[in-house]
């Protein structure tokens, strides 16, 4: 009952604090199944990306988050499970037999869109870390979903790693053009190509 209210509170706060401006540069905000992949510098990333989607898209879009961080306290568990309906993945992979991508594939089969951070961890510096291979496997195993690069500009300055009080600087969220995995494209090539596509959005936010 309370979850939509909490979600509205959190997204409104994020939007007011950062002035969140969405630029739909390469695609339109349409209700089609998508995997949004973005740069990751702060725990606020998925909140801001989610908040910058139109309300109709928010209901079908689920953030993918690391269970090691989000299951640590009851508050985090509540936020990621109840409020944002997140898809939790095990980054440490305690059971090597499990396919870590299975929760994401289940969500995709269910018709949901996903928000993922292919760097795998928060990047405190400029630019992008090398991509983990999850993005490639998702594209290979579930080609129906559009792959949309999303650059989140400035949020690393709003909430630097390890700081509590956010700064009210302006953030821009740029949505790029959809990528498709070619029939015989190698993993390395695809990951590099998608990383370049995301990086090229970084300069366009001004």
């Amino acid at each position, binding site marked *: 009952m309370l979850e939509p209210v909490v979600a509205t509170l959190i997204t409104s706060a994020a939007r007011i604090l950062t*002035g969140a401006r969405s630029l739909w540069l390469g695609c339109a905000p349409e209700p089609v199944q998508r995997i949004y992949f973005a740069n990751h510098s702060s725990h606020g990333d998925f909140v801001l990306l989610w908040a910058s989607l139109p309300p109709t898209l928010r209901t079908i879009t689920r953030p993918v988050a690391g269970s090691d961080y989000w299951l640590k306290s009851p508050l985090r568990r509540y936020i990621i499970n109840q409020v944002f309906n997140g898809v939790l993945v095990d980054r440490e992979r305690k059971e090597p037999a499990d396919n870590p991508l299975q929760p994401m594939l289940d969500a995709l089969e269910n018709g949901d869109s996903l928000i993922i951070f292919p760097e795998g961890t928060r990047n*405190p510096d400029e630019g992008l870390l090398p991509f983990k291979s999850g993005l490639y496997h998702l594209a290979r195993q579930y080609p129906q979903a559009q792959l949309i690069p999303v650059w989140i500009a400035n949020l690393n*300055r709003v909430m630097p790693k390890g*700081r509590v*009080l956010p*700064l009210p*600087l*302006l953030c821009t969220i740029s949505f790029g053009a959809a990528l498709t995995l070619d029939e015989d494209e190698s993993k390395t090539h695809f990951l590099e190509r998608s990383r370049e596509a995301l990086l090229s959005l970084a300069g366009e936010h*001004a």
Partner: protein
Amino acid sequence: MDRQTLMLFGAIGAFLLLASAIGFVLKRRSHGSPNPVIDNLNARINAWWVMVLVIGIAFLLGTTAVIVLFYTVSFYALREFMTLTPTRRSDYPALVAAFYLALPLQYLLIYYDWYGLFSIFIPVYVFLLLPILASLGGDSTHFLERASKVQWGLMIAVFCVSHVPALLTLDIAGYEGRNLLLIAYLVIVVQMSDVLQYVCGKLFGKRKIAPNLSPSKTVEGFVGGILLASLIGCALWWITPFTAWQSLLIALLINLLGFAGGIVMSAIKRDRGVKDWGHMIEGHGGMLDRLDSVCFAAPIFFHLVRYGWT
């Protein structure tokens, strides 16, 4: 509101009605075909309605509301400046101090009418505090540059802008209770100068006055805009403690300062590779795009009035 304020806002309303009518006719004559100049003109006029409405409401509510309004204006200006100014992770404490300490304190000093500290708080105390905070991070990369940027942002967006509501603290003999009109005078003259420079430039502009810094500004726009706006300042002498002649010369001075402010702020934008400071005011750009001339005119206007009329 007293009679003069009402008359003033009535005149502004009539002026905006005329502008909206002109915008409407121009749009009709272009037969619906998209014309970026006319669309931008109409967006600007609509934004002016909103800005006049906001200022009008603050005037109705009184002194505290006006201080809060300019606090908000400073906040938006500071966030635009800091967003465009790259800082490093170790600047975080300095930026926290800028947003959460210097900005509110500067406006509290106006509210409590503590002029002595108001005039030196940011230029002296914050000036010393910021580099101390920045040094805590132990990061010497571009140190002077980073410290200067945060200080500069505070000077422009907070210190300079705060001199507008600070006009309310001046005690001018025979002008008691009318200080809001001094704010109206400053804002109207400087903003009309911007508008008329834009109009004169669009109508007669040929020679660029500072092609490398601000490519849209022309000699014709500069001369026409400043002269006409100074005449408007002269015509507004009845809302000020000045005589008509004084009002003309003061208007000329703040218009020249405003023009220089526009050039300086444009040079910063150009260096950062952007056209506008932000996007919050449709057709105008950001808060700082609308405010650049006021930033440079306000402190000098404040001191002129303070030394000459109090």
